[in-house]
């Protein structure tokens, strides 16, 4: 495993909550991410997998310091061993840390896509950008189109190319592939892999476990705003016995090729989280302890897990 190497990004006990006004003129705090642990090493693709509402996209925005104004954060984020303060975030984002946003609405509607992808890098990038556009199957005329003239899949590929053009050491790719054809998605992911081989790192945020296992080195599993397990991608290929957390196992077993087995119940809502392990209400292995205190992070068989059982 990679624990001894120096990390690029290290997130410890991180939490995000939103300050909200309730109906009685008071303020309430809505906790959406809590106790998040994550480490990204240079040269790897780390996938973050979780269902919608598990806090995956917020994580990317939090790393970049782009959370809404009413967000309150806790815990620490270290970039190259030093704390990522708001000033450093401003300095690094777009240069050392790049985002592939989830929504195509992140494109400027009034700017032609070619110019937009080049960004402020100057004209020297144009050739490189044309190469990337071509590799991703974007026709040559795409650079002269405005975002509204693109299909969903094309817009997504333009977003990916904006990040590939930067010299960033860390790419945060938030659901980069939906809407692309299989060949285009594979090409985009191959380009991410090439970047990782140059010693950069990619955080691949996705709800698609198949995709994550296929392309990432390690997979972090999110549930209700917490990382319940971080495992090698090969552990998922080896099946449920190689996994450590009951939720990861259930996720594996729910895939159509692995039994298609659902689990009763729902992911708890932000603001309505149980006191202990967020998965406890649905967990077949829960004990009284699980319902009162969140298990600490343990290293088990080369992976990290938050479970008292976690064998």
């Amino acid at each position, binding site marked *: 495993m990679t624990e001894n190497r120096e990390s690029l990004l290290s997130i410890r006990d991180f939490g995000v909550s939103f300050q909200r006004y309730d109906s009685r003129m008071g303020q309430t705090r809505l906790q959406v991410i809590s106790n998040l642990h994550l480490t990204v090493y240079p040269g790897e693709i780390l996938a973050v997998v979780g269902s*919608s509402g598990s806090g995956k996209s917020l994580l990317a925005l939090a790393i970049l310091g782009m959370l809404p104004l009413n967000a309150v954060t806790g815990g620490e984020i270290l970039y190259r061993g030093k704390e990522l303060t708001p000033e450093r975030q401003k300095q690094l984002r777009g240069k050392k840390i790049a985002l592939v946003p989830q929504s195509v609405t992140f494109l400027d509607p009034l700017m032609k896509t070619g110019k937009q992808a080049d960004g402020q890098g100057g004209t020297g990038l144009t050739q490189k950008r044309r190469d990337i556009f071509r590799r991703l199957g974007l026709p040559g005329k795409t650079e002269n189109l405005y975002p509204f003239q693109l299909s969903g899949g094309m817009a997504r590929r333009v977003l990916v190319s904006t990040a590939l053009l930067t010299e960033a050491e860390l790419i945060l790719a938030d659901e980069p592939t939906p809407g692309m054809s299989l060949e285009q998605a594979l090409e985009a992911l191959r380009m991410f892999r090439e970047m990782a081989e140059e010693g950069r790192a990619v955080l691949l945020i996705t709800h698609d476990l198949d995709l994550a296992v296929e392309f990432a080195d390690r997979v972090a599993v999110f549930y209700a705003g917490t990382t319940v397990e971080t495992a090698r991608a090969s552990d998922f290929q080896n099946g449920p016995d190689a996994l450590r957390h009951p939720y990861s196992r259930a996720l594996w077993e729910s895939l159509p090729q692995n039994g*298609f087995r659902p689990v009763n119940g729902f992911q708890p809502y932000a603001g309505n989280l149980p006191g202990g392990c967020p998965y406890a209400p649905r967990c077949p292995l829960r004990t009284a302890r699980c319902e009162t205190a969140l298990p600490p992070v343990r290293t088990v068989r080369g992976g990290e897990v938050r479970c008292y059982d976690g064998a």
Partner: protein
Amino acid sequence: MALEAKNVFFRYTRKSPWVLEDCSLTIERGECVAVTGPSGYGKTTLARLLAGWQTPDKGEILADGKPLPTRGPCPVQLICQHPQEAINPRWKLRKVLEESGKLQEDRLGEFGIERAWLDRFAGELSGGELQRFCVARALLSGADYLVCDEISTMLDGITQAQIWETVLKEAKKRNLGIAVITHNFHLAKKLGSRRIDLTAR
């Protein structure tokens, strides 16, 4: 007893190319057919035509030998990929479900819907939860055929398995004919008793 598309031609404007050209297929009651094909081959257009959201320029769509009715509940119901876009954001979900007739609160459990969700707006539920409402709305209308257009693509594995368990249980009980549009090879193999590939024509 089948849902049939007979020599269907369709294009969006008179000048644009055909999206579907001489397309024919049959889905029997009680069978689940996977429809696959890369993006841009007219999977969603076919879904909309089968459910009567759009009418073919040439050819016809028949449910049990009859053309789709122009008023009243359609026997072919479409469930879309993005539930957010198929639900009126200004309605509470109770009203959304009442689109398919009088609300049968005792049946909500079958669809995995919690009673408390009925008094929320669409923006206050997750995609997987909203998709359950779309499934319930389609099934409670008394449909005989379902067209499922990538209904679980945006969902995580567990939620996907939950949704399909509901659909398949109901399908078995009512002998529904189902068209499953998906690009997930494993899902197509699991669900479909046979496969229609739109590139093969």
